[in-house]
């Protein structure tokens, strides 16, 4: 098989899995749908390995059929296999496989078990399509499909009003991003005459001068798409709400894969962004702003999953910063390590939430250290990697991004400094979670678990406090699995290992495996030669270590040594705390600026325009004329409709007669 042959296989497996599971939902017994879906993704992973074996410095393109072609609008259903897409396929299918396995246990008792796996396979297919696309149209299709899959999985427990609301919010934000991409695609097609990446990149070199207005506009529109998907400012508000979905979904889609698509996109579009440095700079600034903003919010949020969600937004900010300062290898390196440790953190959180019978509130957790030793260890590993603790995976990848930013010099140094500041906050909030969940006095649920009983609290919606109807999915009678099931451990173990040692592919001066592997994709980059020296990188790693350890230590002091201090701090800085706890009031702002005017326009349209203008003025006017005619018509004993038709006919007849006469 050729590289592209394997590429098609990568796509075919999840499609097959999805079709088997969705058409066989009634006949497939027990947990079989989950295993079929997992096997499908494993097939994709193997095929990705096949691509890895075959891929070389060339970009291989293969087309299945012409998707749509009219005039200069020509798009094939085609895939592109190069080191970047192979790398993405490996990360996506590998992490997805582990999360599928985890889900087999986690969702085991759910009523929508088969539906869940059909959606999950559909998601993986869409994500792989996105990264394998070789032209803008296929990219947009994959782009929208992952948005749809995300919607379906966020509102998976559709009996919860909060879940369906969050689903709509995510979907609409994603569509805004799609539209951005569509308009960008038009601008590029219009100027370069092509929809293929290769054609656009080649055409852009010829057509555009540096910072050409149209090109900058196109790049900014691409960023709208990227930021909507990757939950960057100001399009981030959907991601925390997306935590309404089942926890493995949060791990897979809203941490490890889909939300990093924006990073992939910027990296893929690097020839355009390098020609439009203004857009790249804006991207870097927004990425930095986002990473700081989200880190501050993560300090105060008390919902365990939402802390991790804000952490995701923040970490993607780092990646965006990386790919925007032309540190493509570093940005993608962080994308990979983040996928490992963030998926791991979510899986650990899922385990804890299971033990808490669905409660996600940090304030009610504590002391799970002994009750769930496996989760404790793996979650801590994840937190260490997130905090960039020395020699964990996140340590190397995060610092590499910041080193590159410093190397670029000028204003980028400021961005890097902010990055270091947020790194301190990151270490702090990462261990705020660890200490609050696993340390301190065991809560009743933890006690019970130590004696082997899984808590069975009254199932309720953590957001609204409504009680859930248990026979319809959430949370399901067998939902409370809490690390008792081997597939969960089988998924968390390898991820913990990867989170710990995943950095080996990018240790400065020792191993540059990843960087070297991705080189062919980015060899055209004008910054290919910009590279911090090994000495600088190690010096900066030293700074990173200090910051990380300082953050962890401070969390230790506040949450373990002097537990009472948090309340006092909160009272002391009530204004700051409120501001952060309201997530900088973004939701309120959007509600006032977009949602209310829109619904207002709706009811204005319905009440005033429809009733008074269309029905009253136009229709009323028409019927008024008819009525006037009718009173005349009634005199000659005809129904007004007939009279009306007759009158019109006579009128038209008169006009016709006039023209016939006039023409002769």
């Amino acid at each position, binding site marked *: 098989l050729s590289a592209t042959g394997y590429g098609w296989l990568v796509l075919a497996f999840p499609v097959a899995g999805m079709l088997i599971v969705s058409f066989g939902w009634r006949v497939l017994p027990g947990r079989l749908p989950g295993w079929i879906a997992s096997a499908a993704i494993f097939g994709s992973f193997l095929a990705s390995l096949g691509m890895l074996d075959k891929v070389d410095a060339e970009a291989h393109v293969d087309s299945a059929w012409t998707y749509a072609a*009219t005039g200069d609008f020509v798009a094939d259903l085609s895939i592109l296999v190069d080191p970047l897409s192979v790398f993405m396929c490996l990360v996506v299918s590998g992490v997805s496989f582990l999360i599928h396995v985890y889900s087999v246990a986690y969702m085991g008792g759910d009523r929508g078990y088969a539906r869940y796996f059909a959606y999950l396979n559909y998601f993986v297919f869409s994500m792989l399509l996105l990264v394998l696309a070789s032209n803008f149209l296929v990219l947009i299709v994959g782009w929208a499909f992952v948005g749809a899959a995300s919607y379906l999985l966020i509102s998976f427990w559709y009996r919860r009003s909060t879940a369906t609301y969050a689903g709509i919010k995510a979907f609409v934000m994603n569509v805004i991003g799609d539209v951005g991409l569509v308009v960008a695609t038009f601008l590029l097609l219009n100027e370069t005459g092509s929809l293929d990446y290769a054609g656009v990149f080649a055409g852009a070199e010829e057509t555009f001068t540096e910072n050409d207005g149209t090109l900058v506009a196109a790049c900014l529109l691409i960023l709208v798409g990227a930021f909507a998907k990757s939950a960057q400012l100001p399009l981030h508000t959907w991601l925390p709400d997306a935590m309404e979905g089942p926890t493995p979904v949060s791990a897979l889609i809203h941490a490890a894969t889909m939300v990093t698509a924006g990073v992939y996109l910027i990296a893929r579009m690097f020839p355009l962004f390098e020609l439009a440095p203004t857009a790249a700079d804006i991207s870097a600034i927004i990425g930095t702003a986002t990473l700081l903003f989200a880190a501050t919010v993560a300090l105060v949020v008390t919902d365990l999953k939402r802390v991790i969600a804000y952490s995701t937004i923040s970490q993607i900010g780092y990646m965006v910063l990386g790919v925007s300062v032309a540190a493509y290898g570093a940005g993608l390196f962080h994308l990979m390590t983040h996928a490992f440790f963030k998926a791991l953190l979510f899986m650990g959180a899922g385990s804890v939430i299971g033990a808490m019978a669905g409660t996600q509130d940090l304030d009610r957790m504590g002391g799970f250290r002994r009750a769930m030793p496996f989760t404790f260890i793996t979650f801590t590993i994840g937190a260490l990697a997130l905090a960039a603790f020395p020699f964990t995976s996140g340590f190397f990848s995060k610092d590499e991004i910041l080193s590159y930013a410093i190397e670029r010099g000028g204003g980028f140094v400021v961005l890097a400094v902010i990055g270091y500041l947020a790194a301190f906050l990151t270490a702090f909030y990462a261990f705020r979670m660890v200490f609050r969940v696993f340390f301190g006095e065991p809560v009743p649920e933890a006690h019970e678990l130590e004696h082997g009983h899984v808590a069975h609290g009254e199932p309720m919606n953590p957001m609204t406090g409504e009680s859930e109807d248990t026979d319809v999915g959430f949370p399901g009678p067998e939902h409370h699995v809490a690390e008792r099931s081997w597939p969960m451990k089988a998924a968390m173990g390898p991820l913990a290992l990867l989170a710990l040692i995943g950095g080996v592919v990018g240790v400065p001066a020792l191993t540059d495996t990843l960087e070297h592997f991705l080189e062919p994709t980015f060899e055209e980059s004008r910054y290919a030669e910009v590279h911090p020296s090994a000495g600088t990188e190690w010096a900066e790693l030293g700074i990173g270590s200090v910051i990380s350890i300082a953050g962890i230590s401070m969390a230790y002091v506040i949450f373990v040594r002097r537990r009472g201090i948090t309340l006092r701090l909160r009272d002391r800085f009530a204004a700051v705390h409120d501001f952060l706890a309201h997530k900088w009031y973004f939701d309120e702002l959007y509600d006032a600026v977009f949602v209310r005017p829109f619904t207002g326009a709706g009811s204005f*349209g319905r009440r005033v325009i429809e009733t008074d203008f269309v029905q009253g003025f136009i229709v009323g006017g028409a019927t008024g004329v008819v009525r006037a005619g009718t009173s005349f018509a009634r005199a000659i004993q005809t129904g007004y409709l007939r009279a009306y038709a007759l009158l019109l006919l006579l009128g038209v007849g008169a006009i016709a007669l006039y023209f016939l006469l006039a023409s002769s």
Partner: protein
Amino acid sequence: MTIHLSIVLFLPLATGLIGAFLPRGMARWAVLAGTLAVLAYAIVLVADFESGAGGLQYVTDDEWISELGIRYQLGIDGLNLFMVVLTAVAWVACTLVAAFTEHDRPKLFFFNLALGETAVLGAFLAQDLALFIVFFDLMLIPFYFMIGGWGTGERVRATTKFVIYTLAGSLLMLAAAIALGVLSTPDGGEISFSLAELEERSVSEGTQHWIVLLFALAFFVKAPLFPLHGWVPETYRASPIVTIALLSAVLSKVGVYGFLRIVLPVMPEGSQHWQELFIVVAVFSILYGSVLAFSQDNVRLVVAYSSIAQLGFIVVGIFALDDKGAQGAVFQMLNHGLVVVPLFLVIGVIAARAGGRESLSELGGLAFRAPVLAALFLILTFATLAMPGSANFVGEILILFGAFEDKLVYGIVASVGVVLAAVYMIRVFQRTMHNREGPAAESREIDGLNLAAVAPLVAVVVALGLYPNFVVQRTETSTTAAVDEARGVAEEVAER
């Protein structure tokens, strides 16, 4: 291969007449057989159609009323090929559902249904302006009877409005057509209504202006576009579900089809003159329809207003006066029709689950015991909101690209409609299928009959999403030809 379009055209009517002489219960089967035969014919047409060839194929051309220069002229090209397919498909699905539903006076109902198909096919196939108008007005009659006779609620008021609006439009168009025929007759020449002939002849630019306007009024009423949609809410609410499915899916396309078949090629200057205004009206319809669709509580009316928005997109595509825009419009006419028919059938099923109520506030949670229904509805929802990967998206993106080409601002405003469509369609899906069961809703799986009608249509929608070029390559030549002259005029004006 010889294919006689007259057979296709009058087959439904013939079966309707045959049905009139059959026993009471049998009429429906005759009509259903007729629609199936038309569908078979349509499939043969698509298979046999020569994609690359310009001009008409399978032409029938006979004298009809020679004194008035009216000919019986039928033909198929890329513009109407898939409109015929859409008509055939829609009628099969709707007749199938109707055939298994009890009606009063079934013979009359099915006769009207059959007559409706003949009328619509006639309007699509006609290559003579007078013949087009005959069929265009003939469409009104069966639908008037079906809504008035078998509708619900305020059906009398609804039909009155429907008829007044459409009739007023039709008569304006009739006047315009006569004027066009008369004024284009060269000195000493004979009057002709043949479209091919009219394209050759010319009328002065000033005359074109008002003739185009009159045609547009008729077509905008039919489409409908703001502010000529006053008949829509009541008609949609009162109509039987199969009638409204056909009205929304097929009849709405006849008007916009008329632009491409008649207005643009025959009166390019006039079309260019009103380009800006029509695009503004269409863009406003997109926004207005979307906002209204969002604020409706009745499921049918959501789809009704969404149709206004969708037809707005199609008109934007046509009056972009650009190859891509027109290509997208032609494709979107097919896509919208193919999606709307099953959408209405699903709404019928939903209403049946809620004791006939269609109010969103009373619905909800239907997916619970009806996963198949929910899955079908989901695919239709995604297609309606033109999600990338659906054929509707390809249509919409071509329309937008056509509009961007030199009406960038309008194009951008129109793309807001894409976002709004996502909002109102997902809202409908959520409010019917998701959340807890509403007070009136009972979750039950889709019945076999509706499944048999909806599932194949959904399969077609999915297949077109996979391979949209199947349609695009067949329509391209004719579409380009249809906008060619008007585009030329627009370019000239732009240069001046």
